[in-house]
């Protein structure tokens, strides 16, 4: 039975040929982003639910049990201080999540504000963009290291130190959207009938920034989790008391030859989280606006 029998007129043929699958449908049919989202959800819930999953205290040092391989009491083994790696890995997820989300949100919000100002007001644009260019010229890690050394280590300092180098990219993105939208006829028309800037911004400009911003935010979150691990690896990251995956890996890296479980498990979790966020970002990008696939 030929499929053409079920098709009638030429219009219907053309319609059938050009019917685009729904956005969600497209996403579900590509397994990778869906898996990414699921994986991320699992990691998030496991991290948030850490206190209920494990009864042990991530700070508790049982000196006698140090550097033990995985066993019934310590599922992932213990580190050089006798602390349970399983517990620390789960709690570490919280820290990595907090850092990832905070950096993403903060840099997006700040970048949005600056980007809109730069895109809309010519005068501010020149100055702001020079500052952004200057910031971008300094490699993020060096800037973060420098900022970290400004004050005592704490999660807030880490968040700020990672946020600042990420802001310029968001600003550029927002600014380019604003510049494009601004030239549209309907914006000029709205301006002609007397629409004031705040309303213009809220109703017309902002909505256009959402899609690229969300995608960018996911990439920033993934990058932030990674950068935190680099900072901890170099010794200038989260305070060592607080378990973050980067910290646990940094502390355990010395023992990679005699007690590799120290870094194996947090590494897997770290890689999985970054991976799932990245995959989610890809999926979001494809879903929200395929044209972005080429721009980002």
């Amino acid at each position: 039975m030929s499929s053409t029998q079920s098709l009638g007129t030429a219009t219907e043929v053309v319609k059938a040929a050009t019917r685009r699958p729904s956005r969600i449908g497209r996403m579900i049919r590509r397994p990778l982003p869906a898996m990414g989202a699921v994986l991320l959800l699992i990691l998030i819930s496991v991290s948030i639910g850490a206190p209920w999953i494990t009864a042990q205290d991530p700070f508790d040092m049982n000196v006698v049990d140090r550097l033990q391989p995985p066993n019934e009491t310590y599922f992932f083994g213990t580190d050089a201080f006798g602390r349970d790696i399983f517990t620390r890995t789960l709690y570490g997820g919280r820290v990595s999540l907090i850092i990832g989300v905070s950096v993403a949100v903060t840099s997006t919000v700040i970048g949005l504000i600056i980007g809109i100002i730069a895109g809309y007001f010519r005068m501010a644009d020149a100055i702001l963009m020079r500052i952004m260019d200057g910031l971008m010229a300094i490699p993020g890690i060096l800037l973060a290291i420098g900022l970290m050394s400004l004050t005592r280590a704490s999660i807030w300092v880490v968040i700020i130190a990672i946020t600042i180098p990420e802001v310029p990219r968001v600003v550029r993105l927002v600014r380019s959207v604003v510049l494009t939208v601004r030239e549209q006829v309907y914006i000029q028309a709205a301006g002609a009938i007397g629409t004031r800037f705040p309303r213009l911004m809220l109703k017309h400009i902002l909505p256009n920034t959402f899609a690229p911003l969300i995608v960018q935010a996911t990439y920033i979150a993934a990058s932030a989790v990674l950068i935190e691990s680099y900072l901890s690896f170099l010794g200038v990251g989260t305070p060592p008391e607080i378990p973050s995956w980067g910290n646990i890996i940094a502390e355990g890296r010395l023992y990679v030859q005699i007690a590799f479980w120290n870094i194996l498990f947090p590494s897997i979790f770290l890689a999985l989280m970054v991976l799932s966020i990245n995959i989610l970002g890809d999926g979001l990008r494809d879903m929200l606006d395929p044209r972005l696939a080429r721009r980002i």
Partner: protein
Amino acid sequence: MKTFFKKAVALASLTMALSSMAEAQVPAATRANTLKVVVHANLQILDPVWTTAFITGRHSYLIYDTLYAANSRFEPKPQMAEGHEISADGLVYRIRLREGLRFHDGTPVRAQDAVASLRRWMARDVMGQQMAAVTASVETVDDRSFEIRLKERWGMVLDALAKPSNPAFIMPERVAQTPPTTQVTDTTGSGPFIFVREEWRPGNRVMYRRNPDYVPRQEPADYLSGGKRALVERVEWLYIPDQNTALAALNSGEIDYFEAPPLDFIASLQRNRNIRIVDIDALGTAGLIRPNHLYPPFNDARARQALAHLVRQEDFMRVVVGNPALYSKFCGSFFMCGSGNGTEVGSEPFREPNVERARQLFREAGYNGEPIVVLQPTDRPQYNAATMVLVQAMRRAGLNVDVQAMDWSTLLSRRASRNNPYQGGYHIFLTTHGGPTTALPPSNTWFNTRCDRANPGWACDEKLVELVADWSRESDAATRRPILETIHRRAWEVIPYVPYGQYTQPVAVRANVHGVLAAGIPVYWNIEKR
């Protein structure tokens, strides 16, 4: 296509020819006879008077020589000196230099050089300053001898000159005349090795070559004294901050000598037949907890005793060291267990932790739950680990602890601050010391209880200062002993600091490296590669 291949082959063979030519420039024999050492820190400052950094001290032992040096019984033995005469009243020391001593530039070593070097050293070094306080003058007598004239009897002159850490290294007069507040840049010395400045890559590599004109003493090498025979052509120091990389390099044979292998790895290194673990430091390292004597609660001796009652040394050692072969379960001496002064009297109540007593003493001292600020250096693994053990012990005892993590450089400036702990000051920090310098009451810098002139922490106890001065005045071991025990008992009441354990840091060498001296610190004479 064919021509392309031909060209590629020609280029490849040319490259290989060039590379083998390049390799040939460094004679094969020399390359084989280079001792490659991984050092524990980056050599940045070349002046041993200007800084007390260990790495600079070790650099100095390679290129300089000293008037006297300590032997394995920590007795001062002549090194550059031929001998000395002490006047009957004990106030004049006349020291004569050996014959044939030359600096690396060929000029002979004269008394003038020794005097200038001594003067510069006495201006900065802790023990040098103590000597300066009792010295009237240091003057040359002739080209080969000079005199130290004291104002009062002081039995430590030769010990000071033979001090293993930060001794008075002898530099040429013109170099030693640099003010003590400025670094010297001229590295001319008279030691068994010569610093090869052209090959120095700060942060990566330091190169030394054998001094062919060095005349070692006849006696066999014994600790830091005796004949310093340089048996390798070159010594190359590599700074590899990543310990995994350094271990891997030792395992693969890329380096010959690892100064400070991580203690947890000693056991597995011992199992490797290509590697030997050598204990070069009989006395070892002692950890100490330094409370700030300026502010409550630790301005009250009871609070300091309480702190001592919380410490289980074995816990600290387990975490900091790991391998039980490298530490003792408890060392209650302020002057290094195993040394001549290693008495433990007065430490009995503190052998086992006593949390109840600690709580009681804290209450008596007026502690009411205020936060105790503890400084934690995150980039110094051993100090970091010890701090964490202390904090846990304090918290388990119910104390309110505010741990502030920072890097070592920040900690160094923080601990020098006399401010209130809540305004940029602190209550507690941890550090280490060790070796024979710690074993002597007057040279043990952290033991110094001269209040304002003491080290950060500012331990303050006049009685202890008097007792130490009494001890220094005596030179006879029999008279010194009872004074020492009095000092020690008082120390455990006053608690200038709380010892948290004593351990050794062995070095790891490839099996073909022989002659590693037990000199307390890594020294590179007497070593050969076979």
